[in-house]
C-alpha cells in the first residue's frame, strides 16, 4: 500500500499538516466536542438536582444522569480530545507523516463504538453504578464492554502516536530532541498506556463477573486496581494540559521554555511518580497499612507535586520573559497587565493555570494527606477538587487550544469573535466558583453522589447547617454560569467548524521523504542571555512573587486543615 505523503503548510502558523493526520485530528476533536455537548446537558441536570431549592430529577434519573455525566466528560470528552492532541504533537509538530493511519481509524471507530455501547448501557437504566462502578455493585455487561472497547481504541491511538515518533526519527523530519510540547505528549501517552493496562486488569475480570464467568470480585482489590486506572487517567490530563499551556505560551507570546532541562525533568517526574496516586482514594479504607498509604499518596515524597509546582512557575515565567523582552519590563507585573486578555487562547490558558494550581492543586494535596482525608473522604469536597483540576485545568486549557486550532486545523474563520473573548471568563470563573463552594459544602460534611441532603421524610436524617444549603445554592448558580460558558464554547466551535467562512490556503501536495528532512540547524550559542530584563538577577520576578503567593496560600490552607483535624474525635 502506498504511503500517503500529502502535506500542506499552514501559511499563518507555519505548521505542517499530513492529510490523514489532519482528518484524524479533526474527527477526534469533533467526537470530543459531541461528548462535551452530551456531558454538558447532563451536567445541567445534575446541578439542578443538587440545588436544594430546585431538586429537579427523581432519584433513579439523578443517579443515572450522574453516571453518564461522569463517563461522558471524564472519559469520552477528554480522551477523544487527548488523542487529537497526541496526533497534533507528533505528526504536526514533528512535520512528519502519521504512522499507520488505517490503525488510527480502527482505534477511532473502536472508541466511538465503545462510547456508544457504554452510553446505551447507562441510559437503559440498569447501569447506574457511577463512573467508578465499584464491585460488588454490578452493571449490565455492556457497560464494561463499552469501556473495554473504548480503551482498546485509545491504546491503539497511543501506539500510532509512538509509531509516528519512530517514523519522524527515521525520516529525520527534525534534529536533536523532540519539542518540549511533544515531550509532554510522550509523558501523557506513557501514562495512558499504564492507565489502560490497569483498566484492562480490572475491567476485564469485572466484565467476566457480570456475565457469570468469575464468581467473586473483592471490593478492596477492585478499588485498588480501578483507581490505578481512574486516577491515572486524570494524570494523562495533567500531562496533556501542561503541554497545552506550554503550547499556548509559545503560540501567543513566542515564549521559550525558561530551561528545557527543568521542564523536561518535571515531565519525567510525572512519568516516574504520578501513577502512585491510586492511593489517594484508599486512605479511608481498611486492609492497607499506613506505610503503604503514606508512600503512595505522597507520590514517593510529593515528587509529582514538585513537578507541577515547577511547571506552574516555568509556564508563566516563560511568558514573563517573552513579554519583558518585548519591552514590558517595568515593575513586577507590567508583563501581566499588558498581556492579551481579550485573546481567548491566552485567557483560557492563564485561568486554567491559576485555577488548577490554587484550587485544584492545593485541595488535592490536602485531601491526599493520609490523616486529613478523614475529614473530606467522599464528601462533595472531592468533586469540588476534581472540577477544579479537570474542568478548570484540563477542559479550559483544551478550550483555549481549540481557538487556536479552528483557523489553522479546520481552516475556518472563527465565528462570534466577540463572544469568544468572554467565553473563557464566563466558563472559567463560573467553574472556579462552582468548585470553591462545592469544597466549602464538603467541609461541612455534605456527601457526594447523594440525591437528597435534606433527608426528607427520614426519621433518622441529618439536618445540615444553613451554611451548607447556602453553599450548595451558590454552587448551583455558579454551575449555571459555567453551563452558559459551555454553551458559548459549543456555539463558537460548532458554528465555526460547520458554518465559518472558509480560509483559502494552499492545499495538500505530495512531499517526498527526502524533501521532508529537516535542514541542519545553524549552531547557536547555548547560553541564552536575558541581560537587561527583570530585577535582582531574577529574569521573571513577577512570576516568582506569584509563586510565593501560591506557596503562602498552600501552607496556610494545609495547616488550617491540620488544625481542624486536631479538633475531631481521637481515633487510632
Amino acid at each position, binding site marked *: 500500500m502506498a504511503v500517503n505523503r500529502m502535506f500542506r503548510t499552514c501559511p499563518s502558523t507555519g505548521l505542517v499538516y499530513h492529510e490523514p493526520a489532519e482528518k484524524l485530528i479533526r474527527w477526534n476533536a469533533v467526537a470530543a466536542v459531541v461528548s462535551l455537548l452530551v456531558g454538558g446537558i447532563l451536567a445541567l441536570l445534575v446541578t439542578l438536582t443538587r440545588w436544594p431549592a430546585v431538586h429537579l430529577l427523581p*432519584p*433513579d434519573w439523578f*443517579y443515572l444522569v450522574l453516571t453518564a455525566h461522569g463517563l461522558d466528560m471524564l472519559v469520552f470528552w477528554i480522551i477523544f480530545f487527548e488523542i487529537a492532541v497526541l496526533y497534533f504533537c507528533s505528526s504536526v509538530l514533528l512535520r512528519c507523516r502519521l504512522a499507520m493511519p488505517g490503525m488510527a481509524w480502527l482505534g477511532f471507530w473502536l472508541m466511538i463504538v465503545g462510547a456508544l455501547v457504554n452510553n446505551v448501557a447507562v441510559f437503559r437504566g440498569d447501569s*447506574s453504578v457511577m463512573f467508578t462502578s465499584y464491585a460488588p*455493585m454490578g452493571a449490565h455487561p455492556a457497560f464494561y464492554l463499552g469501556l473495554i472497547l473504548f480503551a482498546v481504541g485509545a491504546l491503539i491511538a497511543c501506539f500510532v502516536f509512538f509509531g509516528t515518533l519512530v517514523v519522524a526519527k527515521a525520516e529525520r523530519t527534525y534534529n536533536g*530532541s523532540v*519539542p*518540549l*510540547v511533544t515531550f509532554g505528549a510522550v509523558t501523557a501517552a506513557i501514562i495512558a498506556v499504564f492507565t489502560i493496562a490497569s483498566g484492562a486488569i480490572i475491567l476485564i475480570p469485572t466484565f467476566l463477573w457480570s456475565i457469570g464467568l468469575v464468581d467473586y470480585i*473483592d*471490593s*478492596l482489590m477492585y478499588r485498588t486496581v480501578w483507581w490505578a486506572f481512574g486516577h491515572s487517567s486524570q494524570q494523562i490530563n495533567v500531562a496533556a494540559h501542561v503541554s497545552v499551556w506550554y503550547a499556548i505560551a*509559545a*503560540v501567543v507570546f513566542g*515564549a521559550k521554555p*525558561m*530551561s*528545557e*532541562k*527543568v521542564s523536561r525533568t518535571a515531565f519525567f517526574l510525572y512519568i516516574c511518580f504520578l501513577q502512585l496516586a491510586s492511593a489517594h482514594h484508599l*486512605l479511608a479504607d*481498611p*486492609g492497607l497499612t*499506613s506505610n503503604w498509604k503514606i508512600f503512595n499518596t505522597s507520590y514517593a*515524597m*510529593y515528587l509529582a*507535586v514538585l513537578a507541577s*509546582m515547577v511547571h506552574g*512557575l516555568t509556564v508563566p*515565567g516563560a511568558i514573563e520573559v517573552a513579554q519583558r523582552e518585548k519591552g514590558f519590563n517595568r515593575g513586577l507585573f507590567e508583563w501581566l497587565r499588558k498581556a492579551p486578555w481579550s485573546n481567548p487562547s491566552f485567557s483560557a490558558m492563564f485561568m486554567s493555570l491559576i485555577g488548577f494550581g490554587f484550587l485544584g492543586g492545593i485541595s488535592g494535596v490536602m485531601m491526599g*494527606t*493520609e*490523616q486529613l482525608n*478523614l475529614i473530606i*473522604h*467522599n*464528601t462533595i469536597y472531592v468533586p469540588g477538587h476534581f472540577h477544579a483540576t479537570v474542568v478548570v485545568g484540563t477542559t479550559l486549557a483544551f478550550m483555549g487550544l481549540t481557538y487556536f486550532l479552528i483557523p489553522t486545523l479546520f481552516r475556518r474563520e472563527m465565528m462570534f469573535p466577540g463572544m469568544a473573548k468572554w467565553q473563557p471568563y464566563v466558563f472559567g470563573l463560573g467553574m472556579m466558583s462552582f468548585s470553591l463552594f462545592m469544597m466549602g459544602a464538603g467541609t461541612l*460534611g455534605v*456527601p*457526594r*453522589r*447523594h440525591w437528597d441532603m435534606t433527608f426528607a421524610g427520614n426519621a*433518622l*436524617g*441529618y439536618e445540615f447547617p444553613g451554611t451548607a444549603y447556602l453553599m450548595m445554592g451558590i454552587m448551583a448558580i455558579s454551575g449555571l454560569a459555567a453551563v452558559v460558558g459551555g454553551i458559548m464554547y459549543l456555539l463558537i466551535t460548532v458554528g465555526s467548524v460547520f458554518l465559518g467562512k472558509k480560509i483559502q490556503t494552499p492545499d495538500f501536495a505530495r512531499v517526498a521523504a527526502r524533501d521532508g528532512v529537516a535542514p541542519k540547524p545553524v549552531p547557536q*550559542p*547555548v*547560553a541564552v542571555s536575558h541581560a537587561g530584563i527583570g530585577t535582582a538577577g*531574577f*529574569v521573571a520576578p513577577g512570576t*516568582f512573587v506569584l509563586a510565593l503567593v501560591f*506557596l503562602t496560600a498552600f501552607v496556610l490552607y*494545609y495547616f488550617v486543615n*491540620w488544625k481542624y*483535624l486536631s479538633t*475531631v*474525635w*481521637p*481515633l*487510632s
Partner: protein
Amino acid sequence: MNALTPPTGVWWKQPLDRVEGTWIVIAFAWCLIMFFMMPYWHVYGKQNLSNEAYRTTPEMFQAKTQAMVDKYKVREETDQKIPVVAPPAGSDVYLIARLWSWWPMVELEEGKTYRLHLASMDWLHGFSLQPENINIQVHPGYEHVMTVTPTRAGTYSIICNEYCGINHHTMASRMYVVKAK
C-alpha cells in the same frame, strides 16, 4: 526556538535560571515538610485511621453484632424497632452497614474509649459521622477495627456517603454520646 520546535544546541547543559533554581529548592523543602507531617502525626497526633482489619463474612459479623445487641440493648427506636446498645467503656462495638441502613444504634459515653468494628453486609458503604465529619470507607468482607474516643456529648448522625444504589440517600442513623456517669 520555542516549546513547539526542537530545542537547539545542547539543552541539558544550559545553566539553570536563578528563578527556577530558587523555586525548586523552596518547593522541594515544602514537599518534604508535607511528607513528614504524616509520620509526625502518627507519633504526636491523635487522629489516625487504624490499620487493624480482618477478613470476615456477613454471617460472622452479623453473629458478633447480634451478640452485642443481646447483651447491651437498652431500648428500641423508630417504627423499625432499631435496638440502641450501650456497651461499657473499652468494649467492642459493632456496626453493620447494609442496603440501606446502619444497625444497631450505639450510645457511647463522653471521654471513654471504644473499639469500633465496621463492616458491610453487601456493597460498599461510607461511614460519615456528622457534624463531626469523620468519614471512613466500609467494605464487605473486611472488618475494620478502630479505637474511637467521643469528646463531646450530643446526638450525632451517621449517613452513608458511598453511593450504594437507588436508596443510598435514605441510609442514615444516629449515634448518641452521653455524659459520663
